[in-house]
């Protein structure tokens, strides 16, 4: 069954063997926005102009991670280690091509013997920046689709699920629900038709892991989905991807076409009975559609409003059928787990959080970009070693993880290992992997207000607590950020947080108070400082209640904020 893959791999190796030098240009959205396509054109022209095309090729690859230093170009040769160039412009093409056989261009050289590159452990991103995402041949030459063939020809669906359970993989979309358990539930659910949905509606502001994986290694997702489909008994998959990611959509479309061509998708995959089709569904700009039931409503062409769970999509999902919904990064881990075994994966990470996690570093940090580290890596190592420390010479004040559903972790907890439980204990969440570093100049009240504004505008409007509660919380935070708050506003804010968290219909509302709660927990003094003397004084004027004739006070004192 592997013959077809070997054939393609051999052909690929043959066709590249004559190249002693390969110039890789990052063609992910970050570098593309700094015109990396023009750089690629310039480099290609330069190579041809010098008649080097016989032994040097220029190709586009996926994200190399260090987005802050983009556009990035790397040069691979037979003899020496990879050379990385940063801040490249089309005008630099002659210099880079001129230096192919000599020492690197000093002016553009980006050292790779630094923690940013050396401390990472790449599983999800193993191909990112190493293969051309628009060519299935390169994915196959990098062991692509072998896991799928292994699953469908050597393993039973139950064995595939067992492997996932053994790996300890947990949902990377935020919740951290054990993936194997989810697969088991859907596999056991009764239904003739089942679906696999890849949740690529990466909505957290400040997170771009999924986009990068889709742009840099789309076949990995297709392979993961097909394996999932085999394991749970589904023949159809949907990728629900943000409409804001046109490049990712285009690459996915190309990948689906190519995968069909090499018979890794479609009917009778690799000569077996197994059939699996994948279609793309475009999101249209609604954060709430990251929630499973809202996402399903959206695929069905409706307003993306969630419904109460249970029943869970595993039982009652897309068009009422059992449906498996996994996030991009979760699915990206599937192929390596099947290829190398669940035990291999479980050997990485901590006791309860296995494997690696991709983080998008952003904010006041030197090395903004994408990293992948083993679970349990301390925040300090991520921020100060891999991330290169706080930018502008400031001090780290807090780290925001988990986006609008997460919280702010103060600098004193920098030694916390990053895993699901540790972050939850600090009042934040792992989330999808956005990590925003804030220096001393950041106001925590403003950050809370920012996220609340986000939740308020993204609330679908179905349930009362989220629809109206977020507006009130936002208005209160606005008062705090303008230093116009009264003490009772703080009481009311905390009450609303509790209510919205416990009574909202879906995850968006239930977690909307998190940024407020975590900043109240660690930076309460910033809220107190925003209370004006006048406002405090205004509500304080309450004389003691009268004493009845027998001298006992029977009246309850005036309530600060009643009911």
């Amino acid at each position, binding site marked *: 069954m592997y013959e077809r893959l070997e054939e393609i791999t051999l052909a690929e190796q043959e066709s590249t063997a004559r190249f002693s030098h390969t110039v890789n240009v990052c063609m992910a959205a970050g570098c593309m926005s700094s015109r990396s396509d023009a750089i690629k054109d310039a480099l290609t022209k330069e190579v041809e102009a010098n008649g080097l095309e016989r032994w040097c090729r220029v190709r586009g690859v996926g994200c190399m991670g260090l987005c802050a230093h983009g556009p990035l170009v790397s040069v691979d040769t037979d003899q020496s280690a990879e050379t990385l160039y940063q801040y490249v412009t089309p005008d630099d093409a002659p210099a880079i091509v001129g230096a192919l056989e000599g020492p690197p261009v000093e002016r553009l050289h980006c050292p790779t013997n630094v923690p940013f590159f050396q401390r990472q452990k790449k599983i999800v991103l193993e191909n990112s920046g190493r293969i051309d995402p628009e060519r299935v041949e390169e994915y196959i030459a990098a062991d692509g689709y072998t896991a799928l063939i292994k699953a469908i020809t050597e393993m039973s669906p139950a064995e595939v699920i067992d492997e996932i359970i053994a790996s300890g993989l947990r949902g990377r979309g935020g919740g951290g629900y054990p993936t194997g358990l989810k697969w088991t539930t859907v596999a056991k659910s009764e239904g003739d038709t089942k679906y696999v949905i890849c949740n690529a509606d990466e909505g957290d502001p400040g997170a771009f892991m999924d986009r990068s994986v889709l742009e840099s290694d789309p076949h990995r997702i297709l392979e993961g989905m097909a394996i999932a489909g085999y394991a749970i008994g589904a023949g159809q998959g949907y990728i629900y991807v943000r409409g804001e990611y046109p490049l990712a959509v285009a690459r996915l479309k190309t990948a689906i076409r190519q995968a069909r061509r090499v018979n890794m998708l479609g009917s009778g995959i690799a000569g077996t009975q197994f059939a699996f089709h994948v279609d793309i569904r475009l999101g249209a700009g609604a954060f709430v559609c990251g929630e499973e039931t809202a996402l399903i409503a959206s695929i069905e062409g409706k307003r993306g409003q969630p419904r109460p769970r249970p029943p869970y999509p595993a039982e009652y999902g897309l068009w009422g059928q059992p449906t498996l919904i996994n996030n991009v990064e979760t699915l990206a881990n599937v192929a390596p787990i099947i290829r190398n075994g669940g035990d291999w994966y479980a050997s990485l990470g901590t006791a309860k959080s296995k494997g690696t996690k991709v983080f998008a570093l952003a904010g006041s940090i030197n090395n903004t970009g994408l990293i992948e580290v083993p679970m349990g890596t301390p925040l300090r190592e991520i921020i100060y070693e891999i991330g290169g420390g706080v930018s502008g010479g400031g001090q780290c004040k807090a780290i925001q993880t988990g986006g609008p559903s997460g919280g702010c972790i103060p600098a004193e907890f920098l030694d916390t290992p990053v895993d699901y439980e540790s972050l939850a204990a600090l009042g934040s969440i792992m989330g999808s992997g956005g990590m925003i570093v804030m220096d001393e100049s950041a106001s925590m009240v403003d950050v809370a207000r920012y996220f609340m504004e986000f939740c308020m505008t993204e609330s679908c409007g179905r349930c009362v607590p989220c629809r109206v509660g977020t507006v009130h919380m936002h208005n209160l935070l606005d008062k705090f950020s303008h230093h116009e708050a009264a003490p009772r506003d703080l009481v009311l804010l905390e009450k609303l947080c509790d209510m919205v968290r416990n009574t909202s219909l879906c995850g968006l509302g239930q977690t909307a108070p998190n940024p407020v709660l975590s900043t109240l927990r660690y930076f309460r003094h910033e809220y107190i400082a925003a209370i004006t003397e006048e406002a405090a004084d205004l*509500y304080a*004027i*309450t*004389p003691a*209640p*009268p004493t009845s*004739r027998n001298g006992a006070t029977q*009246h*309850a004192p005036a309530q600060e904020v*009643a009911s």
Partner: protein
Amino acid sequence: MNGKLKLATVWLDGCSGCHMSFLDIDERLLDVAALADLVYSPLVDAKEFPEMVDIALIEGAVSSEDDYHKIRHVRAHTRILVSLGDCAVTANVPAMRNRFKVEEVLDRAYFENATLNQQIPVEVIPPLRKQSIPVHQVVAVDVFVPGCPPSADIIFYAVTELLAGRTPDLRTRTHFGA
């Protein structure tokens, strides 16, 4: 001191209906008078709010600068503050202007709907605040008596309970708009 408690009523932005309803207690006013002196009210002559009253019934929303300063003064000199009626409790009809700018409201009243003497008064009439709001959005309120207006029976019940040193339980006896 005659040992009676001091009772006041205050009229902010309301239609005076709650005061009318208060008077509708009729002969039972005598029972109230036996327990308390009405020391300040639109219904009596006193011009100054006393140093300290035990119970103040507030009718109306806080709409003007005058209302605002008055209610703060009253709160500082009152032991139990009662929001009487929907205007005090919810801002009710006065708040219906909140969707418009103050200038628009004044234009409507003094120009568009005036046939004679089209001008916005600046003397005597206190300036309007941006919004009409319930009393408890400005100062702490101890007891709420919703209703438009609350019936005489409810008012009598509330006042006598308070005078007897108890907190009246009005929650299921009256409601907004009652």
